[in-house]
């Protein structure tokens, strides 16, 4: 489990991703003024995935006007290892409407410019929302895995029943016994049965 205790401004590792020098320095300055000293700016998009792993930031800050948002999204989809909370900042006149984005849990955390007094709140919220969402996703993943495992056990039982003329209970007992003998999960044994049977087809 990641450490979810709120860190202080001084210890929080913040990564700014922006190729635009001007925009990146405005973000950096704003964060430093708000007391964040552990700030890294990445202006190179090359090898971004590797760099995120190396820097291991607690939160990534990106300007909403930066088209590289799509690059980050895809990376997070591809790899859990680089997935990090994102805080987004924007200087727009329609920011009042953007508050709705936060409420809707869109995953973007936006504030009216980089007002010093709001930076901490936004970064903290980005991180806590991220962990809450991640927890949900993990629960969903494990629920899905449990369902997949049940399905594979059902299929293995079916194969045994058909090929060895067993009852359902006997098929299940056989799978369980094999799993205990080999010190494996029952779903793993079931998977081998299904694989083996497909080879004999």
């Amino acid at each position, binding site marked *: 489990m990641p450490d979810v205790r709120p860190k202080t401004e001084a210890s929080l590792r913040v990564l700014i991703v922006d*190729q635009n020098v001007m925009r990146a320095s405005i973000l950096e300055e704003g964060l430093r003024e708000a007391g964040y000293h552990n700030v890294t700016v990445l202006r190179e*998009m*090359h090898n971004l995935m590797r760099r995120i792993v190396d820097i291991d930031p607690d939160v990534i800050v990106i300007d*909403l*006007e*930066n*088209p*590289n*948002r*799509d*690059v980050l*999204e*895809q*990376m997070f*989809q591809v790899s859990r290892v680089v997935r990090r909370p994102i805080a987004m900042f924007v200087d727009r006149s*329609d920011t009042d*409407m*953007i508050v*709705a*984005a936060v409420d*809707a*849990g*869109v*995953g*973007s955390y936006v504030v009216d410019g980089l007002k010093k007094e709001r930076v901490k709140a936004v970064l903290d919220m980005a991180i806590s929302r991220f962990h809450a969402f991640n927890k949900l996703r993990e629960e969903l993943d494990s629920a899905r895995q449990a369902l997949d495992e049940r399905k594979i056990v059902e299929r293995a039982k079916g194969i045994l029943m058909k090929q060895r003329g067993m009852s359902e209970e006997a098929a299940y007992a056989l799978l369980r016994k094999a799993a205990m003998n080999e010190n494996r999960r029952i779903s793993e044994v079931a998977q081998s049965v299904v694989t083996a049977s497909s080879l004999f087809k």
Partner: protein
Amino acid sequence: MSDVTTVVGFIPLMDCAPLAVAVEKGFAAGEGLDLRLVRETSWANIRDRVVVGHFDAAHMLGPMAIASTLGIGHLKVPMAAPLSLGLGGNAITVSLRVWDLMMAEGAALSAGPRALGEALRKVVRARERANKPPFTFAMVYPFSAHNYELRYWLAASGIDPDRDVRLVVIPPPLLVDAMREGQIDGFCVGEPWNSVAVSVGVGCIALPTTAIWKQSPEKVLGCRLEWTQRYPDRVQALVRSLYKAALWCEQPENHSELARLLAEPRFVGAPAEILLRGLSNRLCLQRGEEVERLDGFYLPASHAATFPWVSHALWFYSQMVRWGQVAFDPEHVAQVRATYRPDLYRLALDKTTNVPSADTKLDELFDGVRFDSDDLPGYLAALPSCS
């Protein structure tokens, strides 16, 4: 109706043309619509702002609307696509270095997807034998026609898009620089970015994606389902004005004016003469070469280009399943079908035009595999399987 403003987001690409024209040439006003366009910088922003209601509708990647309805990769918010924003308009561009290697393996400009795929496969295999890192190809978003077209062509050519090459996302305006700096070896994107790469001499257009799939689907007008239910009149007015704007966009006598309009920084912000290439179906494939006529490269209106075929939505879904973005689920099929809305299209246009009476059609891509949207598992089984 015009006392309320309808806000529509768009990404600076050639195929935002009907939206720009609907406002600038008065088609929206003619339908009593006060249409305000907002230029956006990333697809994720487009999606988020439609989801939370900043935008009433948007110039949206077809697969993005479907992913949102199904809740893949993000929040589950049902979308409705009452209109398609044209067909085609994309191409696959490779760096000059890769093109030289492909030519050494027998590739030639306009040789078609089979021959070019064969040449690329040989280059990829030679690299593998030499223990060189795989090529990096870019596309613009995981849920996009660009991603699926590129993957389709690679896989049909015997190149596994997940193992034999590296696929990354890079936003359209940054692609040409990334290619110039050698970060990427090829990309699949909409115009004008292929033509920009050619004109500055960093890339060569290997394939318009219409060579992979003639009259292939692209973007849609994407709205929250709930918005379409709340404002049926505005949906109809929007569909009618974009339909008329799309007809205007396709007229050859309007192409120069349209190119100049889109060239403005508030729309696409690329040179008018470059935009004109895609708009007029005359691409220059490599710097210094003659311009080629590619009929049907970009169709804003004709061939029912604005009709939201349900079979197009189902093809996108089939590719999401094929590439592991989502596991096939029969329950998804109904939700995917319900995302593209030919019924809303007909409601807006039936009296004035020839609207297709079917919601689906059979399609066939360049490799001859037929797509029957009623049999997704059968279709997926017929495609070459990769890792």
